[in-house]
């Protein structure tokens, strides 16, 4: 069973505490993505799993063994690096065969595996070339091929698509997902791109400053973020935030801001009761705002002034200013491209009450 278990994992570099009390269970055959901004500890965690960094405290289990003291070569893992790390003085074939030769596999077996992997990745014709003769995408495939031939228990990916241009990145993303479905091997993938995280992961781990912020399936993270950071990190364009005051009026809870006043939906009121009279953070995604029609209840709409119109083709983004000019708040609204608005025009926006998010102002936890 090729699971990976991290228990109370910590990593300290002199003064910097890079990974803090990480606990994670990656199940057999699962594709888990570690995502977060630079310096959040995701790469450090991956490198600790690989054995390239020493563990300050805690345990890592791969399969059924605690691997803390095992050198990388004995952990039965394979890694794909951001810069591919192809051995420049060897051919593609030798690059892929290197690991097997190190383990003294018989020549026939090595040949079989290399050709098999080459075929899966479509690089059979490149076997006799040297890395410098390959394009970026080809090099990346060779790097993946090198990992595949070893039939490891776990695949580790360290931002493998970051060096590719946008189009290639999208293409390779799909191929990697297909590959995972075919090979059914446990995989841990690190990226800073939340789109990659969402599209590739069975589960996603969001990290920040060495702490795990949330672990869950992609849509879970999208719909029910555990805190403000996750809410703002997942989803593009990012969620709109505003600091509001919670008021009680006429038996119902409202949130108030210099620029708008919205009702708190009844099913959320219970969570917000303790915050009466206090401030909280309100969040709403651009796609959960729309131009109001007569049918929208007044208590879920507000006024805004259009500042920038960004037509993207399949949709349109509106940058709107909410509230007085002295205390401006900008929000992004995603609308259908057929909507007709003009810059500096006032527009009435409606909020989807089911999709309103609230966060404690101080702890940033979701309410």
């Amino acid at each position, binding site marked *: 069973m090729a699971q990976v278990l991290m228990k109370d994992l910590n990593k300290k570099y002199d003064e910097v505490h890079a990974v803090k009390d990480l606990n994670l269970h990656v199940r057999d055959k699962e594709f888990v993505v570690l995502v977060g901004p630079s310096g959040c500890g995701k790469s450090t965690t991956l490198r600790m799993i690989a054995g390239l960094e020493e563990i300050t405290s805690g345990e890592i289990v791969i399969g059924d063994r605690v691997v803390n003291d095992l050198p990388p070569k004995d952990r039965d893992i394979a890694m794909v690096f951001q810069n591919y790390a192809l051995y420049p003085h060897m051919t593609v074939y030798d690059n892929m065969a290197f690991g097997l030769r190190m383990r003294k596999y018989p020549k026939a077996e090595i040949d079989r595996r290399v050709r098999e992997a080459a075929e899966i990745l479509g690089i059979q014709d490149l076997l006799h070339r040297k890395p410098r003769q390959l394009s970026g995408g080809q090099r990346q495939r060779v790097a993946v091929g090198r990992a595949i031939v070893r039939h490891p228990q776990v695949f580790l990916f360290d931002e493998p698509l970051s060096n590719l241009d946008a189009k290639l990145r999208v293409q390779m993303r799909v191929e990697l997902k297909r590959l995972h479905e075919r090979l059914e091997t446990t995989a841990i993938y690190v990226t800073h791109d939340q789109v990659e995280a969402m599209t590739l992961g069975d589960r996603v781990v969001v990290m920040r400053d060495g*702490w795990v912020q*949330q672990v*869950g399936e992609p849509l879970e993270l999208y719909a029910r973020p555990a805190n403000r950071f996750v809410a703002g990190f997942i989803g593009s364009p990012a969620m709109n935030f505003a600091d509001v005051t919670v008021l009680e009026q006429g038996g119902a809870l409202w949130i108030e801001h210099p620029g708008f006043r919205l009702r708190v939906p009844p099913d959320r009121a219970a969570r917000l009761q303790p915050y009466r009279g206090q401030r909280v953070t309100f969040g709403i995604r651009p796609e959960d705002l729309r131009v109001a029609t007569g049918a929208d209840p007044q208590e879920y709409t507000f006024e805004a002034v259009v500042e920038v119109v960004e037509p993207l083709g399949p949709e349109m983004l509106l940058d709107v200013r909410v509230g007085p000019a002295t205390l401006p708040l900008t929000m992004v609204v995603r609308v259908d491209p057929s909507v007709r608005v003009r810059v500096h025009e006032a527009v009435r926006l409606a909020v989807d009450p089911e999709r309103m998010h609230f966060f404690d102002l101080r702890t940033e936890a979701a309410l």
Partner: protein
Amino acid sequence: MTDRLAGGAGSAAGVEVALPHPGAARAPARTRVLESERLLAAALLAPTVVLLGLFIAYPFVMGIWLALTDTSVGRPGRFVGLENFVRAWTDSIFQAAFRNTFVYTFWATVLKLSLGMWLALLLNRHFRGKRLVRASMLLPFIVPTVLSTFAWRWMFDPTFSVLNWTLYQLGLIGDRWWSLSPTKLPFLSDGTYALACAIVVNTWRGMPFFAITLLAGLQTINPDLHEAAALDGAGGWKRFWYVTWPLLKPVTLVVVVFSVIQTFADFQLIYVLTGGGPANSTHLLATYAYQVGVHSGLLGEGAAISLFMFPVLFAVVWLQLRYLRRLEGA
């Protein structure tokens, strides 16, 4: 099912399977050496450390001890404190050698730097045959010093010197009105002339080192800078002074320090060219130490003489490190 861990919260690990606690796997001992950073580093550095310890550190310490005794060949010595140093300091030949070493090093370095810089600037352009010229310019540096110095010695020979012949043909020696000297130049037979000749030979030999290294430094300077300066109205010399030189300072410093150390401790050139003569007037510290320590067999005194080199070398390197650190910090 979601595991929720907000920032700072403890660990709700969500471990579903209670594993029988697996034995920690440990690698075999041999792998540990080849793997562990510390052990491997120690193993890799050991040969170098042993070698340098045995043949530099140990002799250095022994040299200091020797200098404090009156050992000579065949006769073990007794401790005599600083007597050797004092004797050297009051010895007129030593004083000459000490002075010579400074003069020699100073002038040779100045000449090597200026000529080397000039040559580097010349070589920094494109012209046909550049590679050949560049390769052949290094020959004085490649060829064993002793052998090329012999060629120079032959060129300076009092009876057969080709240089004297040339000067005579050009009328610079002799009885023409533009002659600089009525008789042939006493290249190696006069103390001052001989030291000057040694400086010339050392310059000839060491200039390529400066030239090639400075050339490499020049080539890292963005040519756009020169073009911008030219457009701004700077002529050749100004361009050099304001654009090129500041960027070359670090490389120049390193090269100068290397060269100073080598020149200050020089032995071969003087040994072959003059042997320290005429009449011990061209000795350097190294050659005099050899004469006293090996020829005369006075090991203690010889060691003391060569140790006089150390403080100077130390000061030079220390100054360089400080200056470089300041350059980098700036």
